[in-house]
C-alpha cells in the first residue's frame, strides 16, 4: 500500500519585546538567574497581570504577515496545570478566541508552490526554566531542580498550521519561511539554537487517497531545520513500518534524539491532561480596533515571498532571487540602489552576493564605502571595456577600502585598459613583425596562434590593453596584409 504523511507544525515564537508579557520586568536571557523577576512573574499572592501593548503589536504583525484574520475582541484564558517552573500553576494563554486565525503561508518546494493553512496564532506567556542537577540531569534521578524565572512571563506567540503539509521537506521549507518572516518583521530574535523560535510537529499517516486522519504523534526537541526534517522523515518511516507490521499506533508525544537519529516515546499518558481552560478573570477581553490593525499593516516590511517575486520580476532567475532574498539587508539595499542607478540585475547580483559578500566575510566589516551608484559605475566600467573583469575586482577592493569612485580607483591604480586603436596599432605591428613564423602559421590555417599573438601584445603593453580589441586589430591587420 502507498502511504501519505499528514503533518502540522506548531511554532512558538518568543517576542523580543523590552519587557515581559504581563509585567514590567526586562527580557534579558543573559542575566543571572532570578534577577529579572517581580511579584507578577513570580506568581506571588495578590499580583495581577497587565498586557504588554508591544507584544500585542508583535502578534498582529505576525498574523498579518501570515494572511490571518485579526480578531477584534479576543480572550485570554487560563491553561491550568501544575509544574514547578510555572509560577501560578496556570499559563495565561488563549483558547477559543485567539488574536489571529485563518491565514496561510505559501511555500515553494521543488518549483511547486504549496499553500499551508494557518489555523491560528495566539498570545501566551512563557514559563520559567528548570535545571535538574545531579545524576546526569535526568528529572527522575536528579537530586535537585533549580528554577530560574527570568524567562517566566516572556511573551510567546504560538502559530498553529493546519495539517496541510505532506512531506518532511515541505515541513522544513515551511519552518524556514516562517522563521524568515518573523526575523524580517523584527519581532523576535528567531534563533533556533537559543530556542527563541521552536517547532513541534504533529505527524500521522494514512493510505494514499484517504481523507481520514490517522493517529497523530507529536514530536518535539528539534533544534535545527535539518533535525526537523530528519525527525519527520524518521517518524513517517516508523509509523509506516509499524502499521505494515500490524501494530496499532498510539497517540503520544515523542522526543527527537539527534544523536541516535530517532524519535523516542516520552511515555506520557496522552489525553489524560485536562487543562480546565476558562477565561482569565484578571484580564478583560483584548480589543484590537481595525485602525490599529491598519496602522500596523502600514508599517510591515517587505516579506521574503514578496521580495522573491519582485527580484524575479527584475530579471533574476528563481535561485538567484532566493539567494538574494536571504542575503543581509545591506546587500539587498545595495542591490536596490544599484538598480536604481541603472545597473543590470544579474551583474549587480553577481557582484553583491559574490565579491562584496566574500569581502564582508573576510574582513568582518560593513561595506560602508560602497553605494549603489558605485556598484553601477563599476559594472559600467567592465561593460564598456574600461577595465577588465579581473582588474575590476581590484577596483572594487579599492572602493571598499575607501579610495573613492570606481573610475578614480581604476586610474589611480593604473588599471584602465588601453583601448585606443591608434595607440595599440603600433604595438600590434611591432609584435607581428617580430613574430613572422607565428604569422605564417596563422596564415597556414593555425587559428589558435592568435592567442599567442594577443598575449605578446598584452605583454608589450604591460597588460593594460583591452584583449578583445587587440584580437580584433591583429585579425584586421593579418587579413589586410594578406
Amino acid at each position, binding site marked *: 500500500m502507498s502511504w501519505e504523511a499528514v503533518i502540522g507544525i506548531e511554532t512558538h515564537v518568543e517576542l523580543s519585546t523590552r519587557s515581559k508579557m504581563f509585567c514590567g520586568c526586562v527580557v534579558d536571557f543573559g542575566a543571572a538567574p532570578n534577577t529579572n523577576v517581580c*511579584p507578577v512573574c*513570580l*506568581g*506571588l*499572592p*495578590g*499580583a*495581577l*497581570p*497587565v*498586557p504588554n501593548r508591544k507584544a500585542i503589536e508583535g502578534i498582529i504583525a505576525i498574523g498579518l504577515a501570515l494572511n490571518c484574520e485579526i480578531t477584534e475582541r479576543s480572550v485570554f484564558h*487560563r491553561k*491550568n496545570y*501544575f509544574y*514547578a517552573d510555572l*509560577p*501560578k*500553576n*496556570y499559563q495565561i494563554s488563549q483558547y477559543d478566541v485567539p488574536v489571529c486565525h485563518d491565514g496561510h503561508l505559501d511555500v515553494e518546494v521543488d518549483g511547486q508552490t504549496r499553500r499551508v493553512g494557518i489555523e491560528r496564532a495566539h498570545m501566551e506567556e512563557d514559563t520559567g526554566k528548570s535545571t535538574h542537577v545531579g545524576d546526569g540531569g535526568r528529572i527522575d534521578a536528579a537530586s535537585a*531542580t533549580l*528554577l530560574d524565572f527570568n524567562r517566566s512571563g516572556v511573551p510567546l506567540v504560538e502559530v498553529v498550521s493546519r495539517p496541510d503539509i505532506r512531506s518532511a521537506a515541505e515541513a522544513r521549507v515551511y519552518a524556514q519561511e516562517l522563521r524568515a518572516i518573523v526575523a524580517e518583521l523584527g519581532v523576535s530574535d528567531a534563533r533556533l539554537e537559543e530556542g527563541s523560535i521552536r517547532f513541534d510537529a504533529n505527524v500521522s499517516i494514512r493510505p494514499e487517497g484517504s481523507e481520514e486522519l490517522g493517529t497523530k504523534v507529536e514530536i518535539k526537541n528539534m533544534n535545527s531545520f535539518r533535525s526537523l526534517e530528519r525527525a519527520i522523515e524518521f517518524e513517517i518511516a516508523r509509523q509506516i513500518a509499524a502499521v505494515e507490521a500490524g501494530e496499532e499506533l498510539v497517540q503520544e508525544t515523542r522526543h527527537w534524539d539527534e544523536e541516535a537519529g530517532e524519535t523516542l516515546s516520552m511515555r506520557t499518558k496522552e489525553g489524560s491532561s*485536562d487543562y*480546565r*481552560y*476558562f477565561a482569565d*478573570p*484578571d*484580564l*478583560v477581553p483584548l480589543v484590537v480596533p481595525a485602525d490599529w490593525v491598519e496602522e500596523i499593516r502600514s508599517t510591515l516590511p517587505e516579506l521574503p515571498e514578496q521580495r522573491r517575486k519582485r527580484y524575479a520580476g527584475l530579471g533574476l532567475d528563481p535561485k538567484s532571487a532566493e539567494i538574494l532574498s536571504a542575503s543581509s539587508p545591506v546587500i539587498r539595499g545595495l542591490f536596490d540602489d544599484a538598480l536604481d542607478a541603472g545597473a543590470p540585475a544579474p551583474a549587480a547580483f553577481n557582484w553583491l552576493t559574490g565579491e562584496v559578500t566574500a569581502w564582508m566575510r573576510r574582513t568582518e566589516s560593513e561595506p560602508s564605502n560602497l553605494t549603489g551608484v558605485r556598484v553601477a559605475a563599476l559594472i559600467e566600467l567592465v561593460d564598456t571595456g574600461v577595465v577588465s573583469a579581473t582588474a575590476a575586482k581590484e577596483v572594487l577592493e579599492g572602493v571598499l577600502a575607501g579610495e573613492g569612485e570606481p573610475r578614480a580607483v581604476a586610474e589611480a591604480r593604473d588599471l584602465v585598459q588601453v583601448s585606443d586603436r591608434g595607440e595599440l596599432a603600433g604595438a600590434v605591428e611591432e609584435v607581428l613583425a617580430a613574430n613572422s613564423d607565428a604569422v605564417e602559421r596563422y596564415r597556414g590555417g593555425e587559428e589558435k596562434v592568435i592567442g599567442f599573438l594577443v598575449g605578446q601584445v598584452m605583454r608589450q603593453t604591460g597588460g593594460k590593453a583591452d584583449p578583445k580589441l587587440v584580437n580584433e586589430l591583429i585579425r584586421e591587420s593579418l587579413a589586410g596584409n594578406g
Partner: protein
Amino acid sequence: MSIPNTIAGAARALRDGSVTAVDLLESVLERAHLTEAQLHAYLNIDRDGARAAAEAADADLAAGNDRGPLHGIPIALKDNMCTRGLETTAASQILAGYLPPYDATVVTRLREAGAVIVGKTNLDEFAMGSSTENSAYGPSFNPWDITRVPGGSSGGSAAAVAAGSAFGALGSDTGGSIRQPASLTGTVGVKPTYGTVSRYGLIAFASSLDQIGPITRTVEDAALLLQAIWGHDPKDATSYPGPYPDPAASLGAGVDGLRIGVVTELAGEGYEPAVESAVADMVAKLQEEGATVVEVSLPSFEIALSAYYLIAPAEASSNLARFDGVRYGLRVDGETTEEMMARTRGQGFGPEVVRRVLLGTYALSAGYYDAFYGQAQRVRAAIRADVARVFGEVDVLVSPTSPTVAFSAGARVDDPLAMYLSDICTIPSNLSGDPAMSVPIGLDEQGLPIGFQVMAPSLGEETMFRVAAEVERLAGFDARPEIPVVAG
C-alpha cells in the same frame, strides 16, 4: 481628653488639637488589649509600625502637611491584603510566616493618605466562609455576644471596628464578606462597584467577584475611607478608569423623590421574623420621608447562590494553584516535586478550602464545563440583565443584609449549605458587579444587630450612600456592644 469614636470626629479632633494620632492609636491599642482575648479580631497587631506611623502623622500634621480625612486615623486591614514586610497569611497555614515584598495598592493609598495601619485582622481562610470560623489561626467572636460568630469572611475587621480596636477597617467582599459581617456586628460595610478599588495585592479568592471595601461605624466614615482607597490603578487590568462618583456628595439629602425597590425574592422562608420586621419598619419610614416604594421581582436571584457556588470555587481552584510549596510559604517535602506539592497543599489548606478547590476543579473539568461553569455564567448574565431591567425602574434596591442575626459559634460549621445560605442576600451584587452596602438599623430582642442592605447600579455610589445615610439617621442606631472585659 475624650477620644471620638468616628473617623470624621477624630479627624476634627486632630485638627483642633484636642487629640493626637498617637492618642488615637493608644486608645485603639488599649481597646485591643482589653478585648482581643475574647474576640480574636486580629491575627497580628503591628504595634511598632503603627506607633511609628502615628508619630509621623502627628509630625506631618504639625508641619502643615495635611493628608486629608484619614490622616492619623488607625485602620485595620483584613489579612488577605499584602503588606510589605508584615506577615500576610490569608488565615491559612500555607502562608504561615509569609512576608510580602510589596504593598497592595489599597495599602499604598492608605499610607499616602496618612492612615495608621494597626494590624491584620482575622478572616475565614482565603476569605472562604461566612463566620470567620474557617481561620487556620482560630475563630473570631462577635463583640455583641462572644458566644456568637462575627460573620465572615471579614469577621475580624468587622469585630475590630465594632469593638473599637480600629476606627475603620478594610474587608473584601466576594459574596457578601464585607456586608454580612457588618450586619452581624452593627457596623457599616460597603462593597463598591466592581473595578473601582484595585485588587492588586489582594490575595485572590474569586477574581471576577472580589472587591475591597470599608467597614466603619458610620456611613460618613465609610464614604471617607472609600474615597481614600478607590480610583484607577494601572496595575489591575480590571480597574475602572473613571470618572468616579462622589459618595459623600449627597449625604443628608434625604430620600424624597427617590424610587426604592423592595426585592420580593429576598424575604420569606429562612428569614428571621425580627429581621424581616425591622427591614419592613425601615422601608415604611423611608416611604414617610418621601421615597416611592415598589415591590420588585428579580427571579434570577433565586438561582444566584447556585451560580455563585460554581463560579467562585472554579476561579478559586485556579487562583489557589500557586500555593505549591515551590517559591514561598509552607513546604512539606516529598520524594518528587509532585509529591511535595500534593503534601504541601494537603497540609496547608483547611477543609473548606479543599472542598471549594475540589468543587471548582470539577466544575471546570472537560465534559462538565458546559453543564456547570458554562451554565453558571449564563445565570450570571441573566442576573445582570434582570438587575439592569429593575434599575431602569428604581434608584436603589433594599433587603435584609443577612437572613439572620449573628448565629452561635459552631452552629453551622458542619453544615456547609446552611453556612452558604448566610450570603443569599449579598451574592447577587457580586455577580452583577454592582455596589451594595449594609447599615445597622437596630437590635433584635436578644440584643443582636440587624443590618439593612442598599443596592445600587454600577457607579451609583452617590445615591447608595445618600439612602444609607438616611437609613442611618432614621434608625438612630448608636448602641455599642458591651464586651466582658478581661484585662490581659
